């Protein structure tokens, strides 16, 4: 498993590049690689901008049915999210963005798990399976 810090814009780029390599090695199609890397970019930026920085964990995984995939986890020790449903609504944002980061990232992956509590940071784990 690769563990990468997210403390700057350059780190976000490094996370994207690493996710791309692992996704290609796992046999994801070019479109699926692009979707996963884009989702990772959104989530890494969230960890940086809203979480004050954090960590990305990138790992090749295999499903129970034997399918190859990539799991990427993001965690930060930021202020957390009070209303998860609201945060996952298209167009909702506390920042200056479009409010598509979290909701869009969820659409781009196969599995999406968001855990957060106010004051306890935020963790998002996503998986994209090969087809």
């Amino acid at each position, binding site marked *: 498993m690769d563990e990468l810090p997210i403390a700057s814009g350059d780190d976000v780029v490094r996370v*994207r590049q690493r996710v791309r390599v692992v996704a290609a090695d796992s046999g994801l199609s070019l479109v699926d690689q692009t979707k996963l890397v884009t989702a990772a970019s959104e989530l890494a930026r969230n960890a940086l901008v809203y979480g004050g920085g954090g960590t990305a964990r990138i790992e090749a995984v295999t499903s129970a049915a034997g399918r190859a995939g990539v799991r990427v986890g993001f965690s930060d020790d930021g202020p957390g999210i009070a209303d998860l449903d609201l945060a996952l609504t298209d167009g909702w944002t506390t920042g200056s963005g479009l409010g598509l980061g979290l909701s869009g990232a969820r659409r781009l992956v196969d599995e999406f798990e968001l855990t957060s509590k106010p004051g306890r940071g935020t963790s998002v784990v996503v998986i994209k399976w090969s087809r």
Partner: protein
Amino acid sequence: MERVPILKLGRTLFVSIQIDLQDDSVMRLQEDLAAELAATGATGVIIDITAVEIVDSFIGRMLTMIGSISRLFDAETVLVGMRPAVAITLTELGLSLRGVRTALNAEKGLELLGGSA
């Protein structure tokens, strides 16, 4: 932070993004383009994203804003060379890049600008 160079060809500004874009680089490009538009009176901007592997919501918003800013300088922006995987991902992400014209490649982009180069 790496900077994206802006070339002036006749009355068109040509930008080819060849780096892995981080947020600061895109914001810098936006500022550099606005300054260049004001200084040159260019009537068109072509942004070539042939080499861009992903466009996420931030980069997409910045591209849309570049289109809006250009319009305030009486210039039209055309985004060219989008990869198929990027187009599919952008659409699923929910970004339409409304207000930005697109063309298949730089040559078609120039045609769209009325050959203003």
